[in-house]
């Protein structure tokens, strides 16, 4: 009986000391046991840059081929972005035009990144310089849109579950003031 009382007293003291020491927050829940995709922001940015470069090369290659074989870009994009790429390729093909010259990535900056479980999401600002790229038709006539932006600011979402398995999930023209 005495032992039980003592135990209760100790429990009470522990609880009271917990109350007296300021306002401790409940301990944070443990993080998921799975390994994060990236150990650091630098690692995430580097992997994203590599993934985007591979995507960019495939996308511009399809443009230079007049939209032929557009599924070549599939390994680098998500299903959603693939639909956009296919629609763009279809535009080249149906209008009989292709690009001459290569777009240049002149700016690649991290906007935001996060990872939950095994999935990482990276948002980057990208500037694509197309000033040296022309659009020509099958007769070789330059039909480049006259009001085209020479350097296009984009907001790009890159997702994936491994540093070497990142995919471009969306790419949108930045509508605010250009950061390029």
């Amino acid at each position, binding site marked *: 009986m005495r032992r039980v009382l003592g135990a209760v007293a100790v429990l009470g003291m522990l609880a009271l000391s*917990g109350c007296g020491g300021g306002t401790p927050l409940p301990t944070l829940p443990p993080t998921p046991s799975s390994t994060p995709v990236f150990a650091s922001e630098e690692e995430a940015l580097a992997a994203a840059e590599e993934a985007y470069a591979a995507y960019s090369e495939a996308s511009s290659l399809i443009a230079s081929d007049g939209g032929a074989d557009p599924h070549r870009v599939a390994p680098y994009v998500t299903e*959603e972005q693939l639909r956009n790429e296919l629609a*763009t390729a279809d535009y080249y093909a149906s*209008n009989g035009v292709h690009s001459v010259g290569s*777009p240049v990535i002149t700016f690649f900056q991290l906007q935001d990144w996060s990872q939950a479980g095994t999935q990482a999401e990276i948002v980057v600002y990208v500037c694509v310089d*197309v000033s040296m790229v022309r659009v020509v038709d*099958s007769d070789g006539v330059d039909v480049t849109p006259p009001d085209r932006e020479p350097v296009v600011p984009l907001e790009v979402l890159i997702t994936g579950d491994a540093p070497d398995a990142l995919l*471009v999930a969306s*790419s949108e023209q930045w509508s605010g003031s250009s950061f390029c």
Partner: protein
Amino acid sequence: MVRLLLLLVLAGLIVLFPMSRASAVVGAGCGVGGTILGCPTVDGRSSGASVVITGNETTPGQPGNVPSGASGTSGPPSGALLGSLGGRCIGFAIANPDLCRAAPADPGIPTITIRDIATFIPTPGRQQMEPDGWAVAGLDTNFYAITDTHVVTGTLLGRPADVRFTPTRYLWAYGDGSSATKTTKGGTWAAQGIPEFEPTPTSHVYDQLGEYTITLDIVFAAEYRFAGGPWRPVVGTITLPANDLHIRVGTAKTVLVEHDCLANPAGPGC
């Protein structure tokens, strides 16, 4: 018997109510291949809860129909097309090459110059949060969106058409200076089988006490079809705001109480 319970004490009242913002952001989907074309495609705007989708089709390949300033003034059809496309000849829902094609393969698509306005109204998404209406500094707050793929019927180029909107991205601004772009709309802790206050793919941790307004913009991809036809992708996306959440972030205190709330419903914090 003494039980130690966690009692979350929040400073102040919590207010949670929806507010709509006046304007919508419209983003233009544009891959690298699209940048070369000048990111043709998206030209939408929102008025209230509706999205006005405007499209027009240029007369293809007529001599003298090349827009001024376009290259290739000899007037090849593709030159006229690209010129007009660079000038956004085509609006949001019909930002599809098929409708801007010089010689449409589909005889059902008119070749004369037409100009139509179609109004498609996507159902705006909503956002909710857990805990409902309040947050604890230092702990994960679970935000999630309520929206789904849906079809809107209307008129496009004078013909009955369907536009299918699919939410694809969720842009959260948490009001504390941070924001996040997510590809999942998230869900309740219970629905995801995650214990309360643990991280979810869409959760956020506030570091500072205070009042915050959380905004959510939902990016929709779209497809369209004319009656009986196949779904055709629409290049570009449209972004619509969901409701705002106004919350107060408080602290959590640990207090000692006798019995739990089931045994003593009148106890402090119950």
